[in-house]
């Protein structure tokens, strides 16, 4: 198989993983697209240097590192600071008139996304990789370069934090829309 074919296969397989992780970490679709592009270019540059069977850990590690770099640049540049609420409105609101039930469901999804994005950085990265991207403990440990036990501890802490965030919504009966 040619390099190009292998590359396109990997992109097809992991493009949404990269983008999803970036969106949660950066809370901004445009920045997430920039990171996604950069990761894809790096995959091409390193196409012969990693094992395609172990690609996911390498790709997510690269994505994570680029997201961290992006966040550092963003925090250093005061002009580029964007209010989370504004960003949330711009990037995640559907803006269309839909049946109430569907809207409630979408609202619930948005609330969960917001709750996940409000988690502390170290917990959020592990949580997203495990719960949404379905990576295993070992893969996450490799991708984020943290001990295996830390991965398990962070996941538990993230779940507890998320529970506190979602408690209000659960008790208000929003989940009856399921």
């Amino acid at each position, binding site marked *: 198989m040619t390099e190009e*074919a292998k590359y396109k296969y990997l*992109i097809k397989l992991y*493009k949404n993983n990269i*983008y999803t992780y970036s969106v949660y970490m950066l809370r901004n679709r445009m920045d997430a697209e920039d990171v996604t592009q950069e990761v894809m270019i790096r995959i091409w540059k390193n196409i012969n240097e990693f094992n395609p069977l172990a690609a996911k850990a390498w790709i997510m590690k690269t994505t994570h590192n680029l997201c961290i770099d992006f966040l550092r640049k963003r925090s250093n540049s005061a002009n580029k600071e964007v209010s989370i609420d504004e960003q949330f409105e711009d990037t995640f609101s559907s803006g269309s008139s839909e049946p109430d039930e569907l809207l409630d469901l979408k609202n619930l999804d948005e609330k969960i996304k917001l709750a996940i994005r409000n988690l502390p950085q170290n917990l959020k990265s592990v949580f997203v990789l495990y*719960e949404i991207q379905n990576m295993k403990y070992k893969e996450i440990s490799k991708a984020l370069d943290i001990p295996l036990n830390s991965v398990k501890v962070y996941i538990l802490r993230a*779940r507890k934090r998320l529970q506190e965030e979602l408690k209000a919504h659960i008790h208000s009966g929003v989940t009856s829309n399921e």
Partner: protein
Amino acid sequence: MNEKLLNKIICTAYGDASIIDKLHVRLLALKNKEINALLLEYKKSAQLVHRMPEESVSDSVIRRVYSNLNLNNESNFVLKAKTFSFFYRRPIAASAALVVVSIIIAISVFIYNPVHKTEYKPEEIERAAVQANEVFKFVNNTFTNAGRTVKEDVIEKNVNKPINEKLNTISKIITKGEVK
């Protein structure tokens, strides 16, 4: 409720607890309303989280990358990608292919192995029979001679004779009542 139990409840709710922990938590939940309520709360959160869809990156991003790297935008690797996908994403298929190849090799090497039967001529068979008879005779003679030697030379001379002499001596002593 201690931290350990709470962690078990959370893991059970999210579906990644061990079987023993799951059973333990479920049994406790049946007996204890508080635990049951907590388990249900976490289960609801877990369901909401697990149904979160992945974000989809737009095709324009991909096109831009391919354009930057001077790659062909058209999908021209359907068969190769499917083959790649079949063998890399499905290790079962790769293992099955390996097993099939191994079976074919085993059949050709071990089972389908024509035995070359050696055919002898009648003269050769007859000669072999004569030679075998001679060998059997030789062995028979050897055993017969050995038996004779043991009986006549060894036992008769070295065992029977001394015993007989001693018995005669004893007999004389008993008869005459003399002790020499």
